[in-house]
């Protein structure tokens, strides 16, 4: 479930407000978006992928709220980890190119 919009990282671009498929955010004038409908979050992690500054954190727990510590998330590299894994962002290459599903299907034969 979405747990964090980092005020220190957020650049108020409101992309997350726009791309969230279940509309959990509300835009605020000249301030980071607010998480106004947290229970509607479907834990799909899509907002993180579109956030250009890794200011969002979706906790893995989909049904309950989980307190998070921003400093710790940053330290452990979890802020923006999905975007990095997918290869989205400045000077990165989409990892779809490295999709090794074919290796797995070979193992299944």
């Amino acid at each position: 479930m979405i747990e964090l919009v980092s005020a220190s990282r957020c650049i108020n671009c409101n992309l997350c407000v726009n791309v969230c498929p279940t509309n959990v955010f509300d835009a605020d004038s000249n301030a980071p978006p607010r998480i106004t409908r947290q229970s509607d979050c479907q834990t799909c992690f899509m907002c993180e992928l579109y956030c250009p500054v890794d200011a969002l954190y979706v906790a893995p727990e989909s049904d309950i709220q989980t307190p998070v510590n921003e400093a710790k998330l940053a330290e452990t590299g979890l802020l923006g980890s999905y975007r990095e894994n997918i290869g989205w962002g400045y000077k990165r290459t989409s990892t779809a190119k490295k999709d090794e599903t074919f290796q797995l299907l070979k193992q299944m034969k």
Partner: protein
Amino acid sequence: MVKTLTADFDINLEADVLVIGGGPAGTWAAWRAASSGASVILVDKGYCGTAGCAAASGNGVWYVPEEAEARYKAITSRESLGGFLANRQWMERVLEQTYANVNLLAEWGYPFPTDDEGKPYRRSLQGPEYMRLMRKQIKRFGVQILDHSPALELLVDNDGGVGGARGVNRQTGKPWSVRSRSVIIATGGCAFLSKALGCNVLTGDGYLMAQEAGAEMSGMEFSNAYGISPAFSSVTKGLMYTWATFTYEDKTPIPGASSYGRSAIAKTLLENQSVYAILDKAAPSMYSSMRLAQPNFFLPFDRAGIDPFTQHFPITLRLEGTVRGTGGIRIVDDTCATSVRGLYAAGDAATRELICGGFTGGGSHNAAWAISSGYWSGEAAATYARSLGNKGQRHLRGAGEAVLKPKKEQSCLAVDEVIKAVQAEVFPYDRNYFRTERGLSESLEILQSLWKEIRNSPVEENQLIRAREAAAMVATARWMYSSALERRETRGMHKHLDYPEQDANQQHYLISGGLDRVWVRTQSLNNGKSKVLNSNLKIGEAA
């Protein structure tokens, strides 16, 4: 900073073709219609590019080279699983269209990987990448996209033909209406807000709208797909569980439990015992391939501090309903037309029995169906729009019936209570996974009273969208269980404990519909109006 809110648009728009839903099927439909020269508007309840199960999840694709033997194998391999309700001609044309369209994706710039032999590998699509590309592609072709714009009802003319839809922008609260010559429903299936990955936008809205306009459903008994996920997580991706051992809490294996043996898992969960999984059948040499194939599968584990290869983790089964079931809006010919003039259905919103029968998993056939049915419906909707010529403005009225009377009253419907009540009938494994006549009948009584309650209830204006979702879920559950009652056998994913065998006399489709009174009728496999359904192929002949 540039504000990207897409809130500002004319609230009364016109187009040749309106597409409702912006997942794979909707975007393929929009692209095909636009590339045929039609003006196209696509509305999405969320954001076209992130909404729907494909964007969040990614999937394999039923992409098979143009070789007779490979195609034959692909066609016959799942016929038995599907209970011999699929149609070989439909499978053939889906394979052909999917092959062509996936190759187009490569042309458009999807970064397909290459395999060991240096050949492009096109049987897997990563969701975010795929749907970002589809959005870009339809915009390139001039499709106007309205995000965060759920449709509330279809518009119909005096002769019952469909002529657009109206809805509301959920971020601004502004109503919108689109007059169009044809409409494609691509709103996905219904997973009842179970939080299966990417599925919470899929609440059967399109089913309800189509029904209100007079369309029919097919195969709604095939609506009890459950996905495996870590108990704490939304990620219902099944492939990696191929290498899992499923155990009780004491780490002893559960007999018969596997990715393909979910019944044993469901039975254990029903006994109020926790089920654990560990991916201990994967060789360490595979770990990196697994991570590269499905980064999102590992995301919840990495964040929860669990190593799924060496640690047991609790799992559950989340309802995926008709999203990975095969029931949906009945289509009557090979253009994916419904029984309502000007109305088409594509992707998970339409029945997938024609290529899957009564069983499907995630992706693969569903992904191929979305691509193909989207393409065909887009083409046909554009052709139909052209055929109407310049007839001038039709008189249109809203076809919607349920909960469309917003009122500012104190005694308004408790929408969330209704949703919880529907979930209580469709989530339990002993109601939906394993079905019994008694269980289905008891649920139907409750669902019928829920329908009466929600049917004419006033709702607060800010609850209108959620109330329509709730009404759609109640209606969907009723078609599901009414159809399930009529299928007195076990076939495909429909497991009927009172009738555990497949019955040769019930190798037919179940068509259903109705709002206040739900009806179900049988239709023989070869008795459709459509050319294709009249196929001479003997279905069920396969090994």
